[in-house]
C-alpha cells in the first residue's frame, strides 16, 4: 500500500481527523474522544489491517494546553506500511487502553503511565514498570529535575 492511498482511505473515514504525510510515515492527529474507536478501525478494517503495535510513547509540552501528546506507532504486516497516531491529552485525563486490540500494548502503556502519569482506563495491570513502586514522581515530565528530587 502506498502512503497516498492510505491517506485517502483515512480521509474518507467517519472520524474528524487530520491525516498528512509526515517525515517518515503517515501521521494522523486524532481528538482524544475518538482515539480508541479510530485505533479500532485501523486494526479491524479489511483494507488497513494494522495488526502490530510498535510503540506507545508521549511528549510533554508544559507550556501548551492540553499538556501531553500521546503517540502510537502501528505497523500493518499485510500492507507493509507504518502509521503514527497522535492525540493531545491533558494532565489527569484518562485514555482508553488499547490492550484489548493489541496485547503488546500492555507494557508500553505501563511505561507511559510510569514516565508521564497518563492513566489508561481498563488496563489489566497498570503499575509502574521501570521505577520502584514507592516512587512518587513522573520522571519524563519536563518539570522533573534530571538529578531527581531528594527524599526527605
Amino acid at each position, binding site marked *: 500500500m502506498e502512503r497516498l492511498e492510505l491517506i485517502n482511505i483515512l480521509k474518507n473515514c467517519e472520524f474528524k481527523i487530520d491525516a498528512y504525510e509526515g517525515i517518515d510515515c503517515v501521521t494522523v492527529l486524532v481528538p482524544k474522544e475518538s482515539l480508541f474507536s479510530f485505533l479500532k478501525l485501523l486494526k479491524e478494517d479489511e483494507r488497513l489491517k494494522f495488526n502490530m503495535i510498535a510503540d506507545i510513547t508521549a511528549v510533554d509540552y508544559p507550556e501548551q494546553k492540553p499538556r501531553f501528546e500521546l503517540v502510537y506507532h502501528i505497523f500493518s504486516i499485510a500492507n507493509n506500511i507504518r502509521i503514527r497516531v497522535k492525540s493531545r491529552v491533558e494532565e489527569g485525563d484518562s485514555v482508553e487502553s488499547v490492550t484489548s486490540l493489541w496485547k503488546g500494548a500492555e507494557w508500553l502503556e505501563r511505561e507511559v503511565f510510569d514516565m508521564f502519569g497518563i492513566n489508561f482506563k481498563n488496563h489489566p495491570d497498570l503499575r509502574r514498570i521501570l521505577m520502584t513502586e514507592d516512587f512518587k514522581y513522573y520522571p519524563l515530565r519536563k518539570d522533573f529535575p534530571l*538529578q531527581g528530587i531528594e527524599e526527605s
Partner: protein
Amino acid sequence: MGIESHLGIITTSLDKVVNWARKNSLWPMTFGLACCALEMMVAASARHDIARFGAEVFRGSPRQSDLLIVPGTLTKKMAPYVIKLYNQMPEPKWVIAYGACACSGGLFNTYNVVQGVDKIIPVDVYVAGCPPKPEALLRAIVMLREKIVKESLKDRV
C-alpha cells in the same frame, strides 16, 4: 618466618599464614550489571590468566564468594539486591568498584542511578575507566592482595 628444617617445623604468625591463604584464594562472585561486566568476563579468559592470583573461581553463589566485583551502572532499583547479595557473603569479604559508574555514578548523574557503590556498601578498591581494561581488574586484584596482607585478625573476625 623461620624454617626449622631439621625438625620439620615452620614458625610464623597466625596473621601471616591466614592472610597468605586469603589473598591466594580470592573467589569472586559471578555478578555483572552493565557493559563493564563484559570486560570482567574477558579478564577471566585464558589470555589474562586471572588464576595467577587465585581468583579464577567465579562462584555462582554469594555464600561461596570472598570478592564482590561490582561491574557497571548501579540503578536505584537494583541497589537493594546488591545490598542483599553483599550481606549474604560470609566474612571476610571485599568489594571492588569496577568502572566509572560503580565508582561515582559515571556519566549518569541522574535520578535513577546510585552515585557510587560506596553509598550503599563499603568498597576496598576503585577501578577507573569507562570501561576499564581487563588489565585494570588484574591491577585491582593485586592492590587488594597488598591490602589483605596488611590486615590483622584482630581487626576482622
